[in-house]
C-alpha cells in the first residue's frame, strides 16, 4: 500500500521507538523567537546545557518588537528585558539571531520559508503554534512549548506520539476574489476548530495545486485553528522554483541531490488517510468571522446567525443582522497568516486611488524586511500611504498585541490575522478575521464590505 507525504516524512525522522506509540524524532530545523525562546535559553543555561547543533537553530525577534515606523515606540521595559536575554543567550550559544534591524528580520513563519531555512521534507519546530505555516513547502512542522524548546536545543530531537492522518481536498476552481484565507476559514467553519484535532492534515485537490506558495502558507498557517498541529501541502515544481537560490537553501550538487529526494515525497496515489474531508470551492464567497472563534465564520454577504449569545454580546452583534454594513474602527493587514508580498499586492490593488474612511485607523505591517523592501520597490508603500494607511516595520504587531500594538476596548477591527479570541488583540477588542483584499475594502468603506463590489 502506498504511503502519504506525512507518513514518509514521519518515518524519515524516527530515531527510536519509546514504546506505546511515542517516538523520538530528529529535528532538522528549529526556529527560536524571543518570547518562548528566551525562557528556554535561560532554563538550559541554568542546567549548563548547550545547544547540540546551534547552526540548525535560527533566532528571530518578532513577537515583542515595536512596529512603529523607524522602530520608535519601544516603551515596555519587559520587552526590552526579554530582547536583551535573547541577544545575550543567542550570542553565547552561537545561534544566528535576526535582530530588529537585520535586513533579514521578520515574522518567524515568514522568514523561515523566504530564507530557505524551511525545506521540503524537513522536520521543523518552533515555540509558536503557527509553525504549521512551514508545511506549505512540504515540511513536517509544528508548534511546541518552552519545555520542548529546551529539549530541542539540547538534543536536536523531540518526543511525539504519531498523530492520525487526514486529507482535506479542495475541489473546484476558486472564484475570482476568493483567496486561500477564505478557503481555510470556510473549511474551519464547516468542520469546526476541533475538526482536525489529533490529526496531521494534508491539503490536496485541484484548488491547492493552483495556489501559489504564499497562498499555501496562509492555508497551512490556519491548521492550528482547524485543531491540527500539523498542516502540509505536497511539494511540487512551484515549491522548487520558490526555493531555488534562497539564502539557506542547498546550492549546486547538493540542490540536485535534495531535489531528487523531494520528488519522492508527495503522497502515493494509493495512500490511505485515517480521515478524509472535502470542500467545494466553486461557490465560495469571501469569508469574515462574526464571533470569538475562527469557526464563527460566514460569507461576507451573510447574516449573523442565532448562535453563541455570549460571543455575540462580546462582539456587539445581533442575530439576523447583515454582517456587511457593520461599522468598524480599525484595520490590520499583517501577521504570519497574511503579510507576504502577494497579500500586500492584493490589499494595494483595492487601496489604489481610494481613501481609508475618516473614522478608521488602518495599518499595514509587512511580514519581513525583505517583503517590505520588495513592496517598496513596487511602490506599494506609496499606494498605502496615499490612501491613508500606516506603513509599519515588520513584526507580529496587532495579531498578538505583545508590543503595545493593541485594539482598544470595544473597538472593532477587521484583521488579516488568525485569532478572533476574546481579548486577543487587546482587552475588549472585537476582531473580524478576513483576507487582505476584504480588510483593505473594509478600511475604505469604513464598514464590513465585499471587496468584489467596491
Amino acid at each position, binding site marked *: 500500500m502506498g504511503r502519504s507525504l506525512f507518513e514518509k516524512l514521519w518515518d524519515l525522522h524516527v530515531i527510536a521507538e519509546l514504546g506505546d506509540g511515542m517516538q523520538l524524532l530528529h529535528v532538522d530545523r528549529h526556529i527560536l523567537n524571543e518570547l518562548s525562546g528566551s525562557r528556554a535559553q535561560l532554563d538550559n543555561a541554568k542546567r549548563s546545557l548547550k545547544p547540540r547543533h546551534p547552526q540548525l537553530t535560527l533566532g528571530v525577534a518578532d513577537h515583542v518588537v515595536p512596529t512603529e515606523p523607524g522602530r520608535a515606540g519601544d516603551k515596555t521595559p519587559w520587552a526590552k528585558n526579554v530582547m536583551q536575554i535573547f541577544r545575550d543567550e543567542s550570542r553565547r550559544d552561537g545561534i544566528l539571531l535576526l535582530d530588529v534591524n537585520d535586513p533579514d528580520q521578520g515574522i518567524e513563519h515568514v522568514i523561515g520559508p523566504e530564507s530557505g531555512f524551511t525545506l521540503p521534507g524537513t522536520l521543523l519546530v518552533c515555540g509558536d503554534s503557527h509553525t504549521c505555516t512551514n508545511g506549505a513547502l512540504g515540511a513536517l512542522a509544528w508548534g511546541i512549548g518552552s519545555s520542548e524548546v*529546551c529539549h530541542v536545543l539540547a538534543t536536536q530531537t523531540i518526543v511525539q506520539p504519531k498523530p492520525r492522518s487526514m486529507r482535506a481536498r479542495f475541489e473546484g476552481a476558486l472564484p475570482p476574489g476568493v483567496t486561500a484565507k477564505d478557503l481555510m476559514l470556510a473549511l474551519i467553519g464547516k468542520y469546526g476548530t476541533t475538526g482536525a484535532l489529533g490529526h496531521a492534515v494534508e491539503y490536496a485537490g485541484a484548488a491547492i495545486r493552483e495556489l501559489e506558495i504564499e497562498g499555501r502558507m496562509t492555508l497551512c498557517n490556519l491548521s492550528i485553528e482547524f485543531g491540527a498541529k500539523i498542516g502540509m501541502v505536497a511539494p511540487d515544481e512551484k515549491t522548487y522554483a520558490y526555493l531555488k537560490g534562497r539564502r539557506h537553501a542547498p546550492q549546486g550538487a547538493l540542490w540536485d541531490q535534495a531535489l531528487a529526494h523531494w520528488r519522492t515525497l508527495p503522497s502515493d496515489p494509493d495512500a490511505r488517510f485515517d480521515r478524509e474531508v472535502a470542500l467545494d470551492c466553486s461557490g465560495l464567497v469571501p469569508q469574515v468571522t462574526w464571533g470569538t472563534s475562527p469557526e464563527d465564520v460566514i460569507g461576507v454577504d451573510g447574516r449573523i446567525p442565532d448562535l453563541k449569545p455570549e460571543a455575540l454580546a462580546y462582539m456587539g452583534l445581533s442575530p439576523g443582522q447583515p454582517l456587511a454594513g457593520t461599522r468598524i474602527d480599525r484595520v490590520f493587514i499583517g501577521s504570519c497568516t497574511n503579510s507576504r508580498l502577494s497579500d500586500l499586492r492584493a490589499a494595494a490593488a483595492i487601496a489604489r486611488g481610494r481613501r481609508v474612511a475618516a473614522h478608521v485607523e488602518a495599518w499595514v505591517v509587512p511580514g519581513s524586511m525583505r517583503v517590505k523592501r520588495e513592496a517598496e520597490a513596487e511602490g506599494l508603500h506609496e499606494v498605502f500611504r496615499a490612501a491613508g494607511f500606516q506603513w509599519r516595520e515588520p513584526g507580529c504587531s496587532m495579531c498578538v498585541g505583545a508590543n503595545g500594538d493593541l485594539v482598544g476596548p470595544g473597538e472593532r477591527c477587521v484583521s488579516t490575522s488568525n485569532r478572533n479570541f476574546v*481579548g486577543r488583540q487587546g*482587552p475588549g477588542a472585537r476582531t473580524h478575521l478576513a483576507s487582505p483584499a476584504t480588510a483593505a475594502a473594509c478600511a475604505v468603506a469604513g464598514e464590513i464590505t465585499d471587496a468584489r463590489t467596491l
Partner: protein
Amino acid sequence: MEKFGTLTAIAAAYPKVNVDTDLIIRVERCAGTPREALGPWAFEMVRYRPDGSEDPGFVFNREPWREAKILVAGENFGTGSSREMAVWALARMGLRCVIAPSFGEIFFGNCLQNGLLAIRLPADEVRRLMALASAPASATFTVDLARQTINGTTRFEISPRPKRMLLEGLDELGLTLAMEPEIAAFQAMDRPRRPWIYL
C-alpha cells in the same frame, strides 16, 4: 518535577468551550512576569473586573473553589497559542489536574512537561463530573493516577510513558539526554542520506 500520586482536592467546573491560552494568560504576562508570579494572572480577563476587583461570577473567586486543585473544563480546553505560560499560570494557581472532553494539542503536551495531569473523558462523563463539582458537598474528587480512576469508579485512559513520567516526576529532557548514542547513530546514518540538512 513534582510527582503525581493520588490527589484528593476540590474540583471546580468551568464549562466554557474553546477556552484559549490567550484567555488563560495574557501575552503581556508571558514576557513580563516571572514563572513563579503567574498564578494571580491566570484567567485575568474573566477573573477580575475592570477596576481590578474579583468577579464573583468566576468559579475560582467563590468558596470552596478558591482552593480547587482540579478543573473540569469544556471541549477544546487550551486551544490556540503554544504559550507554556498558560500551564505555568494554572499550576501556580494551584491546579494539579484538568479534566475535559478534548484539549488543544500543544497545551496537552505542555501539561505533561509540567506535571499537570490532563485527562480526556467522554463529554457525558465530563458533564456528570461538572454537576458534582458544582455542588460544594460533592466537589471533593479523588484522582488516582496509578489506578487511572476518578472517585474510585470513573476510569480514564493515559499512555504508559506519560503515566510513568507523572508518577515518578521524570523530566523528558533528562531521559533523552541519556539517549545520546541513539541520536549520534541516527545522524551518522542520516548525514550521507540528506547532507543538505546539516548546515
